[in-house]
């Protein structure tokens, strides 16, 4: 591992040079929120951002894209969404999210629609500062050891740039004069201070270690019914989750001999027809059953397979769910805490 210094004033110069190699994507402001977008004007790049509305999975597998063209001669794959990209400004939690998706999309069979764009996207991570919804320290995803090509730690007037891959090293070599590999004792102290202050700034916390057991013990707990009654089945939690990978496939046929398309689009396990089979049998008819599946996947199932939760503590479900069903409130309910969430108030109002 090599660590270099980059003065803040030189960042755009660096990005300008690397953006000649591939499409540059970075967070831009959207009102009070942020979104990853293709950067044509460097002044648009938002530096001190919290989470983006959608996680970077949207760059790897777009919300809707074509998998195949088909004619009576057969199926021809369409990988036109695959292009060389450089993704700048991605936070540690989201890099962990991509590492989790890597496992899902590479288990047993390799999914080229995710893995090809993934291989062609350079990851230029950027450090961040927690807000009241961030709990990545609980999932241990506030630190990052793999999954990036370069990682920029923001130390106010300069960055420490961690080189994580050979491709990252290539980028540095495009403008070697702006990088300084002479790290002083003071730089190290500044970094340590930054890290301990950052770590002290977390207010949200979940004990993930006990979640698999608590999911099991609470399998029949009554709060699932309450949560189910409050859930709007809108699917927002799954759209914004950096580790949600579910999708649906539909075929589109066109008149006039145009090739048909096999379209793949994001799906959500909270939607009513998610587990419905032809003939009408629905294995998860109730919202409570579908929510339980989501939380089983996040807090329990992935742990038993890979030894860690498939939640990265990004806080997106906390800021997105209109009725406050999120990892934080469900974890509290699993722990038997009194939760002042929407579903509690809902039951109070109903019984009044």
């Amino acid at each position: 591992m090599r660590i270099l210094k980059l003065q803040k004033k030189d960042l755009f110069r660096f990005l300008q040079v690397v953006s000649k190699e591939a499409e540059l994507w970075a967070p831009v402001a959207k009102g009070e929120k942020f979104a990853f977008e293709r950067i044509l004007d460097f002044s648009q790049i938002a530096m001190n951002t919290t989470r983006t509305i959608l996680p970077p999975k949207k760059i790897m597998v777009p919300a809707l894209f074509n998998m195949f063209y088909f004619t009576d001669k057969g199926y021809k794959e369409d990988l036109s969404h695959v292009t060389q990209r450089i993704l700048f400004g991605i936070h540690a939690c989201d890099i962990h999210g991509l590492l989790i998706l890597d496992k899902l999309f590479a288990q047993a069979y390799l999914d080229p629609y995710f893995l090809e764009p993934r291989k062609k996207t350079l990851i230029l991570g950027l450090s961040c500062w927690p807000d009241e919804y961030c709990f990545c320290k609980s999932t241990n995803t506030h630190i990052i050891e793999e999954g990036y090509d370069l990682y920029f730690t923001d130390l106010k007037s300069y960055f420490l740039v961690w080189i994580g891959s050979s491709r990252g090293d290539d980028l540095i070599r495009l403008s070697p004069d702006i990088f300084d590999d002479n790290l002083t004792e003071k730089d190290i102290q500044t970094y340590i201070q930054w890290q301990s202050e950052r770590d002290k700034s977390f207010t949200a916390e979940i004990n993930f270690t006990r979640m698999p057991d608590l999911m099991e013990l609470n399998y029949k707990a009554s709060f699932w019914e309450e949560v189910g009654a409050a859930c709007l089945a809108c699917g927002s939690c799954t759209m914004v989750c950096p580790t949600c990978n579910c999708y649906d496939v539909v075929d589109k046929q066109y008149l006039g001999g145009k090739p048909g398309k096999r379209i793949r689009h994001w799906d959500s396990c909270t939607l009513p027809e998610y587990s419905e089979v032809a003939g009408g049998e629905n294995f998860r008819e109730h919202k409570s059953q579908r929510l339980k599946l989501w939380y089983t996947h996040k807090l329990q199932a992935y742990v038993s397979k890979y030894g860690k939760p498939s939640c990265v503590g990004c806080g997106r479900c906390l800021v997105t769910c209109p009725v406050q069903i999120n990892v934080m409130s469900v974890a509290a309910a699993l722990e038997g805490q009194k939760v002042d969430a929407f579903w509690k108030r809902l039951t109070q109002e109903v019984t009044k």
Partner: protein
Amino acid sequence: MNGENKCLAETNPFTPEVARIVRTYHLTSDVKFFQVRFVDMEKALSFKYKPGQFAMLSILGAGEAPFCISSTPSRPGLLEFCIRKAGTVTSALFRLQENSQVGLRGPYGNGFPVEQMIGKDILIVVGGLGAAPLRSVLLYCLDNRDQFDRVSVLHGAKRPAEMIFREEYFALKQRPDLECRLAVDADDTGKWTEKVGVVTTLFPQLKKIVPENTYALVCGPPVMYKYVIRELIKLNIPKDQILMTLERRMKCGVGKCGHCAIDYIYTCLDGPVFTYWDVLHMRELI
């Protein structure tokens, strides 16, 4: 920087191969039988699968859906499916004539553990359309009859007209090397010569079995499992030797789309064949 955009068709697990319907006919009013062959002869003959595995069938313009393979790998070349008209894809499939093209990819899933079943007694319990996946393992056992000890088949259908592979089952009754018992819930023909009652009413007639040496294979409508499993447990068949093949919504067959997830498993990768112990352990299976 990474290499150029190369064509991945060879390795893309989602690419359907072109296949042709070589024969199709009605088994009942809403169930049809399909014989399908990969257009590429090489592919047709080299396609390896296990009884209990499934394939994804694509109908041009209508979409793709999972179907269990009803033929046996011991008779290579043709793949057979037994399909009920139930949704968009199957409705489109029912309109297709012989020589129509379909897309086919697979095989997927774990299938029945036929290697472990060698030397054992096999008890097959069929309810209704459950005959479709179990036909593969039944024919496999018959084609390799010397590898298995006793083979018994209990078959239940709603009414005589809804019994699929009727002739095949009545022919089995003539064979001295296996026990085959048939039932219908109700006889509306007046001509039914076998048992009238649900499939569990056949259990008392079953010759005495050696439970620890028996693999019980069950498939039928969801409502059936509870009652059949109760009978199998009464017979003392070990829970991990009671096998069942389950249905779930699937969009990929390869563990990506998420729809068939149960607990920490994917039905398409870890199933569709599960043991009764799996069912107790994972709760949401049946």
